[in-house]
């Protein structure tokens, strides 16, 4: 029988709420990149029977069109579904120490609330304003952070 190879598998699915407004910047060559973190709550019963809540904070990074959509529609407190892969991020502290953490590089972010920052100014007169025409829903094609030609918008 032919030898097997190890599956290329690195997938995360998370639902949480933004802990802050997304930080959207451009790299030196003009590529937009969004960083934010989400809080994921989990409820569980402790051994003594009490219901407890535990929060996990996960950093998310999104590139290209997806980063632009984050800037447009996301804000602190918004609920999102994030699909992507785990990757390491390392940096140096001011005193020269190396640190690294895990984050999720999103390739799909679904906005889970029907009212969004861009469509919902606070004091809009009631003139039958409809829900957003298109669901803000983004799925960049390429994983290499380069191609954005064949996106559905």
């Amino acid at each position, binding site marked *: 029988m032919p030898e097997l190879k190890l599956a290329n598998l*690195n997938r*995360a699915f998370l639902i949480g709420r933004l802990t802050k407004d997304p930080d959207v910047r451009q790299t030196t060559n003009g590529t937009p990149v969004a960083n934010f973190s989400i809080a994921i709550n989990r409820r569980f019963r402790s051994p003594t029977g009490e219901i407890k809540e535990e929060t996990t904070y*996960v950093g998310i990074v999104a590139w290209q069109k997806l980063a632009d959509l984050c800037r447009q529609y996301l804000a602190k407190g918004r609920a999102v579904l994030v699909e992507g892969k785990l990757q390491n991020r390392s940096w140096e502290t001011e005193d020269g120490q190396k640190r690294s953490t895990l984050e999720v590089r999103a390739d799909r972010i679904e906005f889970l609330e029907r009212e969004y920052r861009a469509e919902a100014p606070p004091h809009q007169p009631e003139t039958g304003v409809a829900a957003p025409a298109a669901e803000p829903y983004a799925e960049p094609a390429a994983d290499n952070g380069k191609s954005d030609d064949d996106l559905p918008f």
Partner: protein
Amino acid sequence: MAELRIPTINRVIIAGRLTRDPELRYTPGGKAVCTVSLAVNRRYKDASGQWQDDTTYINVVCWMKTAELVNRYLHKGSPVLVEGRLESRSWETEAGQKRSVIEIRADRIGFLEKAPGGEAEVDE
């Protein structure tokens, strides 16, 4: 229609190899806890068409029976499949700095190597 509520989803599935032998400890209450560090590889073609390897290092924690089996059957280099959830832990160093780590809390670890005596898969 009834209003929706946001479901809790925190699911991770990865396949990789152990970068070192597992470390088994016991809590003061006698529960087994095992930590393993995984290297997860991704192979891709760069802009010039060359194959490149991109490795992500991820710490995985498992408990109880899974912890014991992982410690008994796995070693540096073993291929595994891990399914679980992300957990963050934070603490303060003695110097008062805040630190935090994110790791996977495994609820399933699949052993991907045929080994005599090893179970194919352990569920918690």
